[in-house]
């Protein structure tokens, strides 16, 4: 156990590619926490997808021992957090577990959207923030301009920003000193009843569920009997430790410390991020504030391209769900796509990550259907049904009315792009709730239907604002609106996986856009293909994909035989990845891309 005054807990806030992981690696390495021979790039990111995309999905943590210039030995705990709006709640919990943040900005690029969203989380959590200008070794580095921008845009003092090159090691020592001298030590009562925040949890094949905790008050020891205050579940602690970043067992964790416990917990589902862990006896009376249960807000169907892989898909989904409490699933049958699963996610990135992991780690090719939100159907007989899938929409004559989830969206945007943002929100059926200014930046608050946001709103927002908008949202409940199910027919065959819920007033526009998109997405066939959008039996939009007329290899002699055969084999394999609807083959990506709106 470490004296409170010798502990510093911090996170690193940065945009993708601004060098967060490299800086973390360098801090770990320069303090001798990890031997050089054990260093590999991006120590903290365990999963391949994270490493490739440079994003962190699970919170990771590392304990660093540091002897400061004042001659004292400090314990520095770094929590590395996910940075995406899908995981806003998880980020907020991680932020509450530490007292300060390093705000890392690429000095060749400047402040970007994701930086803003996360730095506001840090400000919300009352963090002391140390700005760090990274990549100063590059010729395009413009430290003064970027420091000024941090002051203008974020509104924090950047005059003493630390200038760093995580790549070459310049400024690493200064960063470590700033963590010790500029960030506050944690507070907490050793003698008070135990209150530990559950920051994150994941499944380990050898140890079962590992729970990442921050001790707020009290002391946690091996063999303690603990209780989760939200779920009421009780466990005996069988292991306590810290990450350096490899696991290292310790005897106890005291106030201000960050570490892990294992307690024979079988499933990640049994642990809730933000829950308060206390002792079963003489436990705390009140839980830590801010807990929210995790509720999937986006649903989509996942189907194996090769229908014989359904059981493999089931296996993959079950294994992933063990390690991800926020991901839900149930079996689904589609006339067009066969057997698959309807899965619930926190948002689009979460969806993409799970899908990529299934494809990559389990080697299953997937068809992903259009994401949908959860609608409330109020039936004429008074019953309320939850609709997770537009294809399941019952006969309209039985439905009294329909309600859809709405969100309160907060968008921070430089003045120059305000008009584009307002237009985007209006186009997505938004109702303006507030508009105010902070310097040259506007803060726009909109009441928006979630179904207009889940899909490509964030991408569109980034695109119309060149990445300078930050976006966050919270659910504000359900409201009635005039929504209808729009179905799509390809070559006169309905494709249930392309059914969507749309607002009646926008149905024609959306139907047209979708038919046009499909016309581009479906390759030309040897015959012409009508593509129609319909509400009930009424066709509201129609496009015709003309027949393919030229697809032939002009020269094919003896020297070409091998190459052309291999090409044909490759095309045959590609053909197998398409879904057959009657005589038409639809490529997998069409099921998502058809819905993207270019506005």
């Amino acid at each position, binding site marked *: 156990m470490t004296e409170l005054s010798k502990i510093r807990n911090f996170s690193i806030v940065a945009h993708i590619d601004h060098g967060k992981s490299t800086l973390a690696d360098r801090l770990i390495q320069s303090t001798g926490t990890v031997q050089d021979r054990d260093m590999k790039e991006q120590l903290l990111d365990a999963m391949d997808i994270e490493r490739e995309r440079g994003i962190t999905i699970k919170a990771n943590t590392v304990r660093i021992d540091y002897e400061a210039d004042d001659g004292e030995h400090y314990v520095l705990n770094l929590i590395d957090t996910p940075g995406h709006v899908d995981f806003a709640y998880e980020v907020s919990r991680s932020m509450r577990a530490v007292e300060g943040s390093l705000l890392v900005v690429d000095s060749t690029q400047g402040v970007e959207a994701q930086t803003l969203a996360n730095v506001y989380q840090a400000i919300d959590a009352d963090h002391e923030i140390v700005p760090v200008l990274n990549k100063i070794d590059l010729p395009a580095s413009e430290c003064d301009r970027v420091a000024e921008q941090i002051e203008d845009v974020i509104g924090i003092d950047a005059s003493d920003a630390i200038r760093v090159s995580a790549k070459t090691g310049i400024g690493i020592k200064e960063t470590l000193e700033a963590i010790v001298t500029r960030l506050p030590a944690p507070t907490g009562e050793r003698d008070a009843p135990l209150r530990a925040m559950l920051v994150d949890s994941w499944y380990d094949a050898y140890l079962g569920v590992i729970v990442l905790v921050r001790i707020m008050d009290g002391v946690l020891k091996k063999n303690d009997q603990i209780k989760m205050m939200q779920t009421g579940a009780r466990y005996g602690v069988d292991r306590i430790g810290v990450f350096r970043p490899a696991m290292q067992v310790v005897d106890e964790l005291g106030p201000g410390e960050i570490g892990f416990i294992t307690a024979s917990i079988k499933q990640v589902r049994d642990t809730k991020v933000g829950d308060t862990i206390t002792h079963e006896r003489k436990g705390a009376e009140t839980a830590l504030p801010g807990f929210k249960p995790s509720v999937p807000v986006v649903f989509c169907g996942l189907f194996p391209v090769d229908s014989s892989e359904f059981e493999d898909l089931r296996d993959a989904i079950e294994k992933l769900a063990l390690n991800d409490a926020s991901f839900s699933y149930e079996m689904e049958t589609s006339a067009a796509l066969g057997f698959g699963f309807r899965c619930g996610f926190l948002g689009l990135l979460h969806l993409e990550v799970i899908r990529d992991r299934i494809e990559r780690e389990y080697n299953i090719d997937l068809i992903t259907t259009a994401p949908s939100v959860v609608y409330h159907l109020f039936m004429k007989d008074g019953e309320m049904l939850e609709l997770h899938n537009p294809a399941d929409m019952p006969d309209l004559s039985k439905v009294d009315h329909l309600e859809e989830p709405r969100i309160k969206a907060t968008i921070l945007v430089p003045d120059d792009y305000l008009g584009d943002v307002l237009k985007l929100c209006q186009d997505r059926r938004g109702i303006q709730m507030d508009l105010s200014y902070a310097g040259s930046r506007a803060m726009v608050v909109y009441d928006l239907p979630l179904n207009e946001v889940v899909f490509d709103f964030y991408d569109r927002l980034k695109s119309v604002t060149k990445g300078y908008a930050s976006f966050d949202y919270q659910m504000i409940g359900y409201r009635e609106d005039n929504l209808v199910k729009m179905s799509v027919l390809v070559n006169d065959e309905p494709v249930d996986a392309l059914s969507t819920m749309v607002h009646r007033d926008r149905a024609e526009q959306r139907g047209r856009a979708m038919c046009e998109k499909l016309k581009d997405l479906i390759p030309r066939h040897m*015959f012409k293909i009508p593509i129609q959008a319909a509400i009930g039996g009424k066709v509201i939009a129609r496009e015709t994909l003309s027949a*393919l007329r030229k697809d*032939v290899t002009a020269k094919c*002699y003896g*020297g070409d*035989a091998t190459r052309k055969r291999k090409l044909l084999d490759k095309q*045959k394999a590609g053909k197998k990845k398409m879904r057959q609807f009657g005589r038409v083959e639809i490529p997998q990506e069409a099921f998502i891309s058809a819905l993207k709106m270019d506005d």
Partner: protein
Amino acid sequence: MDDWRNGGFGLYVHWPFCQAKCPYCDFNSHVVSRIDQSVWVKAYRTELRRIGDMLPDRLLNSIFFGGGTPSLMHPDTVAAVIETARDIWPFANDIEISLEANPGSVEAGRFAGYRDAGVNRISMGIQALNDEDLRRLGRIHSVSEARTAFDVARACFDRVSFDLIYARQGQTLEAWNHELSDALSMAIDHLSLYQLTIEDGTAFGDRYARGKLRDLPTDDNAADMYLATQDICDRHGLPGYEISNHARPGAESRHNQIYWRYGDYVGIGPGAHGRLTLNGKRHSTEALRAPGAWLESVEKGQGTLPFLALSQEDQVVEHMMMGMRLHEGLDMDRHMLLSGQSLSDSKLSMLQDLGMVERVGSRLRATANGRAVLNSVLRELLTD
């Protein structure tokens, strides 16, 4: 009976040098300042004898000198290769010996020499009948030079074919029809008419990728040109016997038909491919592409990479891919023997209903519309 006998047996000799590299060409060709032909004669001979030892008791139906620009070969070099081949295999009475020629004045001066060496058919790369387009295609000859060279060739050989490239940048259907009529008035009994194909790894491929290759006809326009070409050539008595080849009946290229009828062929020279049936098993052969490396490999005793045995599946695909290119179509009985199963009736009916294929006795033939989208037809036939 080995399956290759349905197609015959030919020899392909690759000459890998050109005076200049054409921007659309993805063939194995190299531009060098000096070539010692005696070194090449020696290497061709060595390699021919090595392969010849593996293939006794064959009758040679054709020899084809391709490239590169084989009309840069000295007539003595050509003669030496032909003589060596004759030492190894008896020649069929009607053996066809073709040589690809650039239609320039220098080449024309060698035509008589090629004839005396044993060449009996010339295929000339004229490519276009207007100078501006020849320049755009990177050709070093002019239309008038080409016409002169063609006349010289006619005087030396009974059989002279030439190539044109169409669906070129900025070319309209009308302009092509006009050029084609012009070509048909020159043609003797054979024409190769290729739609311009943008290949990766060529100068055109790079330009295309950078969006700098403008005014290419749309696929629909190119399809119109293709169908018009079939009609016009039919009416002139030079029907298409293959996707891009037209001939007076009986004047088809025998050598190329060996490929399309899936016979055996020896490939000699840098980058040359072959199909050889040894002990009842069909193999593919391939040589190193770089001229220097190939010469060295021949010197070390083996001018090809190790032969690869072709799987049943590979042979089925190649037989169909090649056979469907021909107007005579695919021999379905032979397909059955190669694959062990007949083509799916439902696939055939579907393609027939779409007007893409027709059955003529035991043969399956692509219609003109089907030939224009043959790759799609093949994908359909080859997937279950």
